[in-house]
């Protein structure tokens, strides 16, 4: 069993990385990134079968992760770096010229840990399904994971993919929705309601797990374990994971305003006071 205290400490550091990265370039997406810290820390530190030191595009026999809502790149980059995929110091190049840490993740600059470009929403589930089908063809029993925003589910391609995965029994796939209820223009419920999301995915033929505590690392790990036990049972698996956008920084919580804006100097200082430096800042 993973040391929960260590995971919580890493989560605090990842949150520091996120706010410092977006502050440094006055751009980027801190809100969703902060909300998904526990998902990423649990996935990369506890759940995934992977070797950060030996990254290959094909990832033979490794579990693979696809980030579909690419704008939460700060949390993705921080966790990849702190797991050893690339030097932690490289986080300071985020969104700067000639960086491998592009605003949205890409394979184009050869950043270890990234297997697909994402940012234009709705495409990642299809890619994850393709990778899952390749695993099956290769008789590779590893698992494919994907993460999606709740607002992203407004894209039609997600539902093409959801239909395909169930109809074709893609049962080596664990997708998760970051169900924070907010998007750029406001509450998802007001922008375009998703209705009964659980019923929708179930109607499409998925096994749906609900986790109302997506910022509780132990509960996130528990959801992953539950999902892994459902692998190979003929259905794709969806975790609807309730999170709080902006989690960990008081003034970024309870609003959609920090979806895509960076803190100024004063706001950064206020945020860092709330987040313990548990590992060294980059």
């Amino acid at each position, binding site marked *: 069993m993973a040391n929960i205290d260590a995971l919580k400490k890493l989560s605090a550091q990842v949150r520091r990385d996120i706010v410092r990265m977006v502050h440094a370039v006055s751009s980027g997406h801190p809100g969703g990134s902060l909300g998904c810290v526990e998902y990423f820390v649990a996935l990369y530190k506890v759940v995934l079968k992977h070797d950060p030191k030996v990254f290959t*595009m*094909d*990832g*033979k026999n490794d579990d*693979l992760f*696809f980030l579909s809502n690419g704008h939460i790149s700060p949390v993705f980059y921080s966790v990849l770096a702190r797991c050893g995929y690339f030097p932690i110091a490289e986080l300071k190049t985020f969104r700067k010229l000639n960086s491998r840490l592009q605003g949205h993740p*890409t*394979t*184009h600059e050869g950043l270890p840990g990234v*297997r*697909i*470009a*994402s*940012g*234009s929403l*709705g*495409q*990642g*589930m*299809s*890619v*994850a*399904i*393709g*990778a*899952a*089908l*390749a*695993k099956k*063809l*290769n008789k*590779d029993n590893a698992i494919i994971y994907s993460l999606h925003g709740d607002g992203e589910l407004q894209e*039609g*391609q997600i539902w*093409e*993919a959801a*239909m*395909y995965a169930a*109809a*074709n029994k893609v049962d080596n796939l664990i997708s998760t929705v970051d169900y924070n209820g907010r998007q750029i223009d406001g509450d998802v419920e007001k922008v375009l309601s998703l209705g009964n999301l659980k019923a929708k995915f179930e109607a499409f033929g998925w096994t749906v797990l609900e986790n109302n505590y997506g910022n509780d690392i132990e509960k996130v790990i528990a959801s992953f374990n539950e999902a892994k036990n459902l692998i190979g049972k003929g259905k794709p698996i969806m975790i609807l994971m309730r999170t709080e956008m902006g989690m960990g920084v008081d003034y970024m919580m309870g609003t959609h305003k920090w979806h895509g804006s960076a803190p100024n100097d004063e706001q950064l200082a206020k945020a860092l006071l709330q987040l313990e430096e548990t590992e060294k800042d980059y």
Partner: protein
Amino acid sequence: MKKYTYTEKKDTRSGFGAGLSELGKSNPNVVALCADLTGSLKMDAFQKEHPDRFFQIGIAEANMMGIAAGLTIGGKIPFTGTFANFSTGRVYDQIRQSIAYSGKNVKICASHAGLTLGEDGATHQILEDIGLMKMLPHMVVINPCDYNQTKAATIAIAAYEGPVYLRFGRPTIPNFTPADQKFEIGKAVMLNEGTDVTILATGHLTWKAIEAGEALAAKGISAEIINIHTIKPLDTDAILKSILKTKCVVTAEEHQMNGGLGDSVAQFLSRNNPTPQEFVAVNDSFGESGTPDELMKKYGLDSVDIVKAVEKVITRKK
């Protein structure tokens, strides 16, 4: 004028189907995806021979492009099949982000391109696909001219690492290139050496260019005819060499003038060797219902249109 003959007319899509079937036997990494047009794309043979490597996606082209991109992660070489319209315009962003920008080894295979799709009309007759695809960085764009060349191109692109757009069509047309002719991506094929004008033709317009060459020869005009099967990367060496000799050029294609082969040729020549050029292409217009032959005549893509363009461009020579 070199004499070209053919024993039968065949559709280029069947060349694709035959090439794909052959690849299925020779390369276990080749997989195929289709969005509910298996018969139209002639993918049935592959589907029958390799059911485990064939993915019926349903009418969901965006999902198909994403799944194809994902299949490359794990070493597969996916060939997607649907009409040209649904292979490009409908899924441009999916191709751009998940395939081209991500550098995925996907072969986007597109049938029923252009006016010769015929009676279905303009909703299905895409004439902008070459332009859409060639604008994407590092995308290879191929438009073969007959059954044999399409089959050879299908086999050749599996050996090339990177995204490729392969465009072919529905009607039966003369199958005149040698069955054993090697297909080299980006290498133009000299069909007839001449001195008065260069005709650069791609796809279905290649046979029309041969017909035009014969008509021009009867009028005493010596046409150099080159088949440009690869629009990107363009064989600029072959083009320049010919133009330095003939001093004028006609491009011929079943595509919009904007964004097509002619546009690529003009861009190259304007920078390297400005040359009078005439375009046989659709001029800023949608198509309509009709038979392929009627449409090619109405929209100015027939051999007589190539002859007229040649006669005009020759008068513009300095």
